[in-house]
């Protein structure tokens, strides 16, 4: 099994090439060849296919693709290459388990298969920027108040004592440490101090900030989880590699963070499906992830709920869940913002698609492409957990039928979606409770979805 130092050695000894040549002469043509050679084809009629053989075939295409292309290191301008044998060995040796949380909240985040009725690992919350510490605290308490929750993401702060946070600056380090303190404090107040925080460190864009704020005296534990991002497509830099090195030395949970972009270098859905699957292999081999946070997104709409992305998510999730022991959190971005019907339709489509396709975990779908400040509330988290639970009762085929019906409700509005409300517009900032209108909308949509046959449990 290759150690991380072996990976690093390849980053300094692999074939040298400009980044542009890697994109144009390696990534694009070889991806095309693999898509053609394996005959991977998108079918817009079936956003959630039920074909195990096709899923396994896609997995083989991804192994082949990764062995042909490798990972580009931006600092050394060299390609980190792996043979098929090395890739397969990493898959064989992977445990498919991530140990997260402490005390009562300690849990094993493991695998699921397509059509399996077992509950996924419920990961809620988001790193969406929050403009006050009070709102950040309220939100986290709100997440933790949902009984089923296994792990959370905490918001990013945009300022510290009124000083705006600049990426990579001392203000970022202060805010990162403050963000962790707020997270721990809010979890304690909710009576669940052991819950793992698995989007570390949301406030930190720079690797040096992440590493510095991770010193245990600031409150983080090895059973939390750190995001170590690949750069799209199929690239990495020393910033991420330094984080990985630090976390490996500490024995802390590494979350490989990956985001293939449909319509970008991956081309259409077929190419993106291959790359999406290959990224899960990369998470094992390069970032040495204990878990992965994965979000294929659409280049034009910045969301994960268009028909072509849903298909891409479904097939790559099936390929990975059946073949690669890596607990992946599948994260969706919606076009519409919080407190809109469209958000709930999109979120339900994404969750049905991912859960039926065998997602080991799903995170609360992020409203408004995750770029609206304060554009996230615990209400979306509640909906995410309830819908994901209901989705475990649906086979891929049933999920497919429902996803098609949901698409009919929102597909035409993807181009110009409603941007929705901010937290402070639909929640009481002091009590941390949702406003009446939002509760009404929530109940209305849930009823409508239940009528469509989404089996919410009666306890709600």
């Amino acid at each position, binding site marked *: 099994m290759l150690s991380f130092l072996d990976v690093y050695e390849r980053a300094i000894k692999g074939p040298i090439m400009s980044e542009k040549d890697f994109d*144009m002469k390696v990534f*694009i043509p070889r*991806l*095309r060849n693999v898509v053609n050679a394996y005959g991977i084809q998108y079918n817009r009629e079936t956003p959630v296919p039920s074909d195990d053989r096709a899923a396994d075939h896609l997995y083989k295409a991804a192994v082949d693709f990764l062995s042909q292309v490798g990972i580009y290191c931006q600092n050394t301008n060299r390609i980190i290459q792996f043979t098929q044998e090395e890739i397969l060995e990493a898959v064989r040796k992977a445990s498919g388990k991530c140990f997260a949380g402490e005390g009562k909240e300690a849990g094993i985040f493991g695998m699921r298969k397509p059509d399996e009725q077992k509950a996924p690992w419920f990961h809620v919350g988001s790193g969406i*920027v929050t403009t006050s510490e009070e709102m950040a605290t309220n939100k986290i308490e709100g997440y933790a108040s949902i009984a089923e929750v296994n792990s959370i993401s905490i918001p*990013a702060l*945009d300022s510290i004592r009124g000083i*705006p*946070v*600049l*990426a*990579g*600056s001392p203000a*970022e380090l202060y805010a990162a440490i403050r963000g962790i303190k707020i997270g721990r404090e809010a979890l304690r107040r909710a009576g669940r101090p052991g819950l793992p925080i698995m989007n570390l460190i949301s406030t930190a*864009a*720079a690797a040096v900030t992440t590493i510095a704020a991770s010193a245990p005296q600031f409150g983080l534990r090895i059973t939390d989880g750190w995001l170590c991002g690949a*750069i*799209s497509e199929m690239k990495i*830099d020393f*910033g991420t590699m330094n984080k990985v090195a630090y976390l490996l030395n500490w024995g802390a949970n590494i979350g490989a963070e990956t985001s293939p*972009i*449909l*319509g*970008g*270098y*991956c*081309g*259409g859905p077929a*190419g993106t499906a291959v790359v999406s699957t290959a990224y899960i292999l990369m998470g094992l081999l390069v970032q040495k992830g204990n878990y992965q946070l994965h979000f294929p997104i659409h*280049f*034009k709409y*910045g969301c994960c709920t268009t028909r072509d992305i849903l298909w891409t998510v479904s097939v790559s999730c099936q390929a990975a869940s059946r073949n690669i022991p890596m607990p992946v959190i599948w994260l969706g971005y919606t076009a519409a913002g919080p407190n809109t019907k469209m958000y709930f339709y999109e979120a339900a489509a994404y969750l049905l698609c991912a859960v039926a396709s065998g997602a080991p975990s799903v995170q609360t779908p992020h409203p408004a*492409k*995750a*770029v609206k*400040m304060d554009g996230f509330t615990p209400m979306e988290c509640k909906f995410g957990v309830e819908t994901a639970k209901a989705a475990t009762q649906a086979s891929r085929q049933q999920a497919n039928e429902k996803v098609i019906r949901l698409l009919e409700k929102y597909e035409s509005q993807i181009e110009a979606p409603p941007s929705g409300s901010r937290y402070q517009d639909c929640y009481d900032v002091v009590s941390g409770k949702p406003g009446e209108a939002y509760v009404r909308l929530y109940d209305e949509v849930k009823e409508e979805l239940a009528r469509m046959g989404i089996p919410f449990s009666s306890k709600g």
Partner: protein
Amino acid sequence: MEQQEIFEKLSMAIIEGDENKAKAFAHEVLRSKIDPLEAVEQGLSKGMIVLGDRFEKGEIFLPDLLIAGDAFNSAIDVLKPAMEALKKNIAKVGTVLIGTVNGDVHGIGKNIVGIVLEANGFEVVDIGVDKPSLKFVEEAEKVKADVIGLSSLMTTTMTAQKEVIDILKEMNLRKKYWVVIGGGPVTQEWADQIGADGYAGSAFQAVHLIKRLLGQKKIGA
């Protein structure tokens, strides 16, 4: 072959992303003594426009544009000596220097904007991601850019867009460039607030925006 037919074939070669055909019909232009500049405008460029349109509609994707761009460039290479001999130049729409600001490694959106601008005839100089603010100014001076495009995907790096504009002002260079901004959290309001010349929410809007700006005269330039 008729002139019109050759133009259509050139256009098709671009649409199909067929480098060999593009080169072959470019040679045909030379053999038939057709005005090479007209062949570019009526043939090659028309193909790119069709593709740009399909890309906007989501019917084709970035690699298709890139491959067509390669075919376009190799046909231009064939035609260039003839154009130079006739002292004709392809009208340059303008030079855009583009990059992602300091501290930010999100590059895909910026790449797409660059590629779509190129497909629309702009000269694009992409300086990459996570670039210090001063670097934008230095490079813009070096390549004699008309437009500086600043991409930022994070609230914590948006301030660097302002910083570039402030540096331009401090160096008395602000009037020399159009500054356009974009990226996930960026808005028109932010553009107004920091004194940028424009904001675009997508690559296509970026093309329209920059074309519109270049059609205006820079005050005091």
